[in-house]
């Protein structure tokens, strides 16, 4: 671990002023510390934000405002979340382990880095870790990697479960920058595709601090989060589906779908949802939705199975949410 300065911030202004190029905020530290021990990340300064007053979950405008430091465990257990946004609670509980969720925070979870094996090994070329060195995952071991939204510079997947549910729920990220200005960025615009700059993952500037995530008023319909993984717990998603479907007299009147494990960012494709809305559920319709979702999939040898796996998981999830009519 490279030696670093440590600053404990006592206000958000203090935090953003202390941060900047080459510095990192530390929240739960469950991802950052691992990466620092391996020197995959080597900030010269850590700004500890744990004492900031960002631990509240409050109801606003019929929706919910989640402080950036609310732990994954607390968020999953929150009564409003469990009742109004069950997909979020399910997604959180499907992630990591109890111990990690106790430490992991809402802001940190959104910003966790990819689990690409080569990103974690500083002896390997990696465009995300060291821009311009190449992508060693290409043609390598790619079970964890994305099939959508990748580029020829990087095929890493975004590992978060929580962010997939938040993407489904149209979450908005509240960001404070140095100087105190606060802006809101919808999660749909928060992450950036890798393109030729996979090291730039979000729209955040170096001193930007996430202070909260807001969820709009709960939308109608049944919700679920389904995570498919290599062991029963404590494993990242091979594919996950967050879904909400509203039915009226046998017709799908509203639908939202987000995916984990297959995208370079928590994945959502409006065309898939559009294809479902206003239709009567049927195997053909579900197959069509899967076709649209996977039309641009670019699998590697090891993760080619994610194409049929995603297709099957999506269809089964839609069947479940549309109820018996789907049969």
């Amino acid at each position, binding site marked *: *671990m*490279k*030696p670093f300065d440590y600053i404990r911030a006592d206000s958000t202004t203090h935090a953003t002023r202390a941060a900047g190029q080459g510095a990192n905020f530390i929240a739960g530290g469950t991802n950052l510390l691992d990466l620092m*021990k*391996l*020197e995959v990340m080597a900030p010269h300064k850590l700004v500890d934000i744990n004492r900031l007053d960002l631990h509240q979950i409050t109801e606003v405008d019929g929706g919910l405002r989640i402080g950036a430091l609310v732990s994954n465990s607390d968020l999953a257990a929150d009564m409003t979340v469990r009742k109004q946004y069950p997909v979020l609670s399910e997604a959180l509980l499907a992630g990591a*382990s109890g111990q990690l969720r106790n430490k992991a925070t809402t802001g940190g979870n959104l910003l966790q880095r990819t*689990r690409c*094996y*080569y990103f*974690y*090994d*500083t*002896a390997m070329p990696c465009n995300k870790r060291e821009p311009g060195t190449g992508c060693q995952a290409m*043609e*390598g*071991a790619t*079970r*964890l990697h994305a099939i959508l939204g990748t580029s020829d510079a990087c095929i890493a997947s975004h590992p978060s479960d929580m962010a997939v549910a938040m993407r489904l729920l149209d979450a908005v990220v509240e960001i404070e920058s140095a100087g105190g200005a606060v802006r809101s960025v919808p999660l749909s615009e928060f992450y950036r595709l890798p393109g030729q700059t996979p090291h730039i993952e979000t729209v955040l500037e170096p001193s930007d601090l996430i202070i909260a995530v807001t969820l709009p008023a709960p939308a109608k319909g049944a919700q679920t989060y389904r995570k*498919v*993984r*290599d*062991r*029963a*717990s*404590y*494993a990242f998603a*091979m594919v996950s589906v967050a879904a909400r479907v509203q039915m009226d007299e046998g017709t799908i009147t509203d639908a939202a779908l987000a995916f984990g494990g297959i995208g370079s960012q928590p994945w959502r494709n409006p065309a898939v949802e559009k294809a479902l809305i206003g239709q009567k559920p049927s195997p053909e319709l579900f197959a069509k939705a899967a076709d649209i979702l996977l039309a641009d999939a670019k699998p590697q040898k090891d993760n080619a*199975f994610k194409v*049929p*796996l995603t297709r*099957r*998981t999506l*269809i*089964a999830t839609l*069947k479940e949410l549309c109820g018996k009519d789907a049969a």
Partner: protein
Amino acid sequence: MNAHLKMDKPDDRNRLDDMAQGLLGTAMDRPEGPLKVTGTATYAHEAHQPGMLHGVLVRATIARGTLDGVEAAAVEKMPGVRKVMWGDKFLRNPAQGTANKAPVQGSSEIYYIGQPVALVVADSFEAARHGAQSLELRMTAGTAVPDAKADGVAVERPEKKQSSMGDLKAAMQDAAFTVDQRYTTPGHNSAPMEPHSAIAWWDGDQLTLHASNQMLKYNVNEVADSLGIDPENVHLLAPYVGGGFGSKLGISPDAVAAALAAKELGVPVSVMLTRQQVFENVMRRSETAQDFQLAADKDGVLRGIGHTARVSQLPDESFAEPVTQATPFLYKGENRETHMEIVRVNQTCAGSVRAPGEAVGLTALEIAMDELAVATGIDPVELRKRNIPDRSPGEDKPFSSHKLAEALDDGAAIFGWADRKKGATDGEWLIGYGMSSAARVNMIGESHARVTLNPDGTLLIETDMTDIGTGTYAILTQIAGEMLGVPQDRIETRLGDSKLPKSAGSGGSWGASSAGSSVYMACEKLRQTIAAKLNCDEGDLTLKDGTATFANKQTPLTDLVGDAPMVVEGAIEPGKTQKDFRQATFGSFFCEVGVNSVTGEVRLRRMHGSFAAGRILNAKTARSQCLGGMTFGIGMALTEELIQDTRDGHLVNHDLAEYHIPVNADVPQLSVNFIAERDPYANPMQAKGIGELGICGAGAAIINAIYDATGVRVRDLPATMDKILPGLPDV
């Protein structure tokens, strides 16, 4: 006094059954348990010494080539860094089990990515690690063989590892039913909870090493040979070992690096491997490709078995995963071929991982047997029973004791095998049932222990034997307590110190039988001495709760010992009963799995194992060994796989986030039952090894259950969803 036994004759007196204390075989708690659960047992890295420095090893980052130099000066200028070292004494890889000499040494020849070629020593672990990560290596790349499965790799077929009997080809042609398939298993890592580590300090030319090792008698010689010093000058301490599973049989690179640095710097030095280094530096189980040919007659009785196994290994290492070890003795068949093939690769060294040989070899055989059961339509339990031989067919030896049939029947009854339903479902889950046999060779190694009966009636047991989490402290206490009628709270057991009498060490499931027998021998001698004092036959003497009883007369032991302690060194050594008989443990596994019909995810729902391993010394620790073995089997069947990048051979998933051992949620309720057995050929306790039996074949039961549930036959382990998906019905 001494008591020495060479096991040339069976001992069917079953003397332990005559004892009165009632301690042996019970589920007695481990005496050291409270230390472990309160964090006060000192593991290797925890015996901090005053003025101790920390060393972190530096990995080579090319698969083959030379190390021409290191940029030491830049790193030695870093804050806290004291020294950068490299040289011809660094270990390329750990010593193989019972090697008794140094493994390949030297930093300048690089053989695999991850080879520890240099050491950075600093005031703190953090500073040393930062130095190690910053050290630039000047390397020249050579030509590597990174992929054991590449077309055209050179294959060695050592003559000693090939055997033929009868005419298998003809047997296959004449057979009513055949199986002719290839099964593949990936590399495994034992990933013990305690990383390999050592603290070294010198007093003149005397080296003390506080390390994490399984076999001190051999480890002392390995350290001495690596450093070029007299074994007399090496004192090795390993009182607590946080898991080994074979990975600590031989010394690992940390020990020698720590000793070199401590010598150079004149202060104690600790070197601990990081988790990633445990994966890269310490033994992997080789991947295997196994071709099985089974030829059966119309009744399912085998007339021939062919087993050809290919494994990989670094150059200049003699160990090859003994994949075919159980094939010669498990099932009938007069026409047999067993062949081993070795490919030399530039990858992490291959070595012993829990149950080398049977863990993967029997698993493949038991999948093949299931395929035969399907082909013949014979119940898999019945098929196995029909194939139990009278003598070991491939070795032409009698069995010492054979309880496979009993284990199969017992397991089937407890599991309810006969009541299983074909085609059961639970929502999206397809339910299936599978079973397999378990078998593991049994042996002992020469072992010595000293037992002291003190004037105050307390007992002291001393041997350099290790307890790697298995329960050695408990069982040696129980054996001595039972033989001498001394309650547990008056017994002290001291282990893991190379100055104590030399034992066989922990490994190959021989630890309990070997070390236990040496304690038994010492105690038997003590009983004879006590009997002599009472003028009676040892056989007529009853010892219980510190009192000797003979002819209705009770005498406290304290009255019999006198003023000086009674000290006996007991010893056991293998003899004719090991050479002339096939000794083995047997068992059976039964399980129920659910396979998700949408995703192909497999979840084990329940599993049972019945095992015959001779006398059971401690009901609780024996059961725990079997539970642990079965859990390894779950990992082997479903999740565990070392991923090697075929372009440079490097281990891709070198941590516990991505090398998937089963977590609690993957392990349902497991049950274990022991079959009563006394094996007189094994040792004077009639006990056999149990540390590895629980993994041998366990994975096959799960693979067979997946077939039962889905009709998908997985022949390439582990059975991850991608291998099952193509065989599932549409959603």
